[in-house]
């Protein structure tokens, strides 16, 4: 994450237009008092079948503030947000909105009271336009029957413009980038007259530039008096954006404080309950021959507008025991590098890949497995794991063939592999027959890495290895990666998180718009150097 400076570009006239637009009638000028408590929760508790998710949590939210809600996975953030947004209706405790006690009977009820939630997984219909999505379910009608498209577009455009979002309201959601979709979701919430906006991990899939736009909009909204509850796993953005922070741990509130005067490590230790130190390992100067050599890797993808070049001239070597980090903005071709090496990139690929100095052609994941190249995918639920099946089955899947003889499965061997993985990676579970869906995100990620370790890889490709997992689990994954490198694996890591990139990498390859912008050694790799190389337009545009 390249980080924002505090308090950039607060656009007063836009903010006030948002305020005067549709909200003035309701709060009647009260917004000028930016410290009024709009939402107060007292003694909120919630149990799921005997498991306590929240215990006696107090929480208050002032108008015009960005209130960060922090905590590890399972700390109760989601539960609290869902209670506030009317998703969970059976809880103990009291919630007051502007002093009046409320008990929502559902999400619609909460929306009527001015509370809107934006879930991490966006709820937009990809095939409809932005405008249609904003007014989905409450379309203005002509003669009570026909949808008034012109009014939808006009109203949506006006709304987006007021928010300072530069999106054509008539574009289909599927054509928009994730960041833009996120903004459409915000516009939709505001069109519902939301005074309290709950945002669950809005930046987990955004690039740096998209985050900036999002932050700008969030700050504007706060200026306009909207109270915002914000969660994120990225500490730096919370520090930059939030006014106050509340930390939950094991369902209890451990801290509520203004963000000023709190260091990142103070927040982390509040979340984890112990001191956490990020230690970079001593770089291993390996002089042995590279395991993986990539030369002039090029990838063309077919899109609706014809061939599009997504990679051009990527060349690098990875030696045993080395961790090569790949940095760059989202869409700069980082994931495509890994997919191309692994033989699963869609499109037309060119260039040479050599394993142990021998040129190889990898055209499918099966080829890659045979050559002992492993790819841990970015989206573990969609691409990495069979979520409804057991740890044993997931770990054994790439090794089923190797553990078999004459096509008959070696059950003992499969169980052995799964047990090894659980032991080695310290997966917290009841046993190898636990269903993967019931594991926490961090442990799921361990299984997803473990299933490849069971194949005994020489080259390990990791795509966003810590996405969506909490601070404590991140540490464990880092230690694991360091340990694997020490065992002599050649590791390539793609990550969007700058601190992670700097922490893990022995060298950093920076991508910019499909081109290799440069390779920085450990000493050269600083946040500034990487951002400078990654910035679009610094290198020449990739020729079509």
């Amino acid at each position: 994450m390249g980080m924002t400076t505090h308090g950039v570009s607060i656009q007063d006239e836009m903010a006030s237009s948002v305020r005067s637009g549709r909200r003035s009638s309701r709060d009647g000028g009260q917004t000028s008092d930016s410290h009024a408590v709009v939402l107060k929760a007292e003694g909120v508790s919630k149990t799921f079948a005997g498991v306590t998710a929240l215990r006696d949590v107090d929480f208050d939210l002032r108008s015009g503030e960005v209130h960060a809600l922090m905590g590890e996975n399972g700390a109760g953030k989601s539960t609290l947000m869902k209670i506030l947004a009317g998703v969970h209706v059976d809880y103990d405790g009291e919630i007051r909105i502007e002093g009046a006690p409320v008990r929502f009977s559902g999400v619609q009820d909460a929306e009527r009271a001015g509370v809107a939630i934006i879930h991490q997984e966006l709820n937009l219909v990809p095939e409809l336009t932005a405008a249609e999505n904003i007014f989905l379910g409450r379309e203005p009608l002509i003669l009570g029957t026909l949808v008034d498209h012109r009014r939808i577009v006009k109203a949506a455009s006006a709304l987006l413009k007021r928010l300072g979002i530069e999106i054509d309201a008539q574009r289909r959601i599927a054509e928009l980038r994730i960041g833009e979709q996120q903004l459409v979701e915000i516009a939709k919430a505001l069109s519902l007259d939301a005074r309290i906006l709950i945002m669950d991990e809005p930046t987990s899939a955004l690039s740096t530039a998209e985050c900036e736009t999002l932050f700008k909009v969030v700050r504007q909204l706060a200026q306009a008096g909207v109270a915002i509850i914000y969660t994120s796993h990225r500490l730096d953005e919370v520090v930059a954006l939030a006014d106050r922070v509340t930390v939950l741990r094991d369902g209890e509130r451990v801290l509520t404080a203004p963000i000023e005067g709190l260091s990142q490590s103070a927040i982390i230790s509040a979340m984890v309950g112990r001191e956490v130190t990020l230690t970079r390992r001593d770089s291993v100067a390996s002089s042995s021959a590279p395991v993986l050599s990539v030369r002039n890797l090029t990838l063309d993808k077919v899109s609706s507008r014809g061939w599009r070049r997504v990679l051009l001239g990527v060349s690098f070597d990875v030696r045993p025991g080395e961790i090569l980090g790949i940095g760059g903005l989202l869409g700069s071709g980082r994931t495509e590098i890994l997919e191309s090496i692994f033989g699963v990139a869609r499109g037309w690929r060119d260039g040479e890949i050599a394993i142990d100095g021998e040129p190889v052609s990898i055209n499918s994941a099966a080829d890659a497995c045979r050559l002992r190249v492993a790819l841990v995918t970015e989206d573990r639920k969609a691409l990495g794991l069979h979520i409804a099946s057991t740890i044993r089955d997931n770990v054994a899947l790439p090794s089923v063939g190797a553990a078999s003889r004459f096509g008959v499965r070696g059950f003992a061997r499969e169980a052995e592999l799964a047990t090894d993985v659980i032991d080695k990676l310290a997966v917290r579970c009841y046993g190898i027959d636990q269903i993967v869906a019931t594991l926490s995100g961090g442990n799921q990620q361990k299984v997803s890495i473990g299933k490849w370790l069971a194949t005994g890889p020489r080259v390990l490709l990791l795509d966003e290895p810590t996405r969506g997992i909490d601070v404590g689990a991140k540490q464990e994954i880092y230690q694991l990666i360091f340990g694997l490198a020490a065992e002599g694996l050649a590791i390539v890591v793609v990550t969007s998180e700058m601190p992670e990139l700097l922490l893990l990498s022995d060298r950093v390859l920076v991508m910019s718009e499909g081109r290799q912008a440069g390779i920085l050694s450990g000493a050269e790799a600083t946040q500034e150097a990487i951002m400078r190389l990654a910035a679009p337009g610094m290198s020449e545009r990739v020729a079509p």
Partner: protein
Amino acid sequence: MIVLRLLSRTKLYWGLAIICLIGALASPHTSSGRNIFLSFNNLTDVLRQVSITGLVATGMTLVILLGGIDLSVGSVMGFSTIICAMLLTQPGWTPASIVAVPAAAIAAGLGVGFLARFVFHGLERGRDVDAGRRNETVLGPWRGVRIPALLGLVCGALAAVATASQVSTKFGVLAVLLVTPCVALALGAINGTLIVAGRLQPFIATLAMMVSALGLGRLTAGQDHAVIAVYTGTNATQAFEVLRSMVWGILPMPSVFFLAAILIFGAVLRFTTFGRYIYAIGGNPEAAKLSGIKVAQVQLAAYMISGLLAGVAGVLFVAQYRQGKPDAGSGLELDAIAAVVIGGTSLMGGRGGLAGTFVGVLIFGLLSDILQLQNIDSNVQLLMKGLIIVGTVLVQEQNLGQLLTRWRGQAPLPPPTRTGSVEAYRPSQVSMTSKTREDIHEAS
């Protein structure tokens, strides 16, 4: 609690038990007071009647577990009955034998070739597996192919000669039993190729095959022969009777094929890598592909197996009903799908198994038997079938707790209390336990 868990784990078999109970209680009795439903003859008859649907449903289970569907099995079976009946009754080069000889030759050649390569591959790798390590050397895709290819060619040629030599006379029982499924296998291979290489939706590819196999059957039979009658002993070999006989006086021959298929493919699903891959692909095709599974090969094989079993079912149909006709299997695909679904296999793929299919097939068979014993109209049977499908799937798919929660959810919630007292509303114990899983998942 333990009782409940046991009940829900074995719920697959409860439907069967209930049907049996109803059958035994409602059954008419012979003059000597014996229960007809429970009589040996009646039960073996049921087994005989379900065998054809059962064979087809076995193949269908593999395809559905894979996340696909095979609508063509009925037509493919009908086509197979024509091939089988013509080969039995008409000597010389008829359309049936023209199709059958090359199909048998190709199937034998490829089958032996792949089997040999598979065995060589296994031998080559066995040592490494014993050592508990993965293969160090990289096996090129064409390494070790020459000997299997040669073997395949030889066997293919032998099969061609052997079947062609039968053409001048009428085919014997073993010959039709081997050759007819090869033709159906070829149709299944076309299905699979369309889906794998042509990237067609399984529904569409097999729908096309369903229509065209029916047409193909009619063309093969010729306009005048909508039905080809098979009279063993007069126009066909007497030996063909063996396919409708009782084995050791216990099991009807068709059910031997059915049970064998269930056992063989049950073992395949449970114990082989192929079976594991079917579940993996059905559960998450992308993840399976990225795990190095050759998705296309597995899919192709599953559709071929489905075709093969439809072919075997076709031969049994001819033996059973003494005729071959193009529309012999009309509606069969839907019966098979219904049996699979009743057995608890998810149409989304990745979940279920052959034990369920076996139960599903038996439930249908017993149901129509009971209704026949009561002399109930066959249209009522259709209605009952529909109700059974809905009923069992409702019970299979959602556990009782979920149903209860839904009812509770529809009950009006208490109005929001002004005081917001802690005791204002406490959910019942039932709803808490039943919502556990999804909620904990959400919370994490």
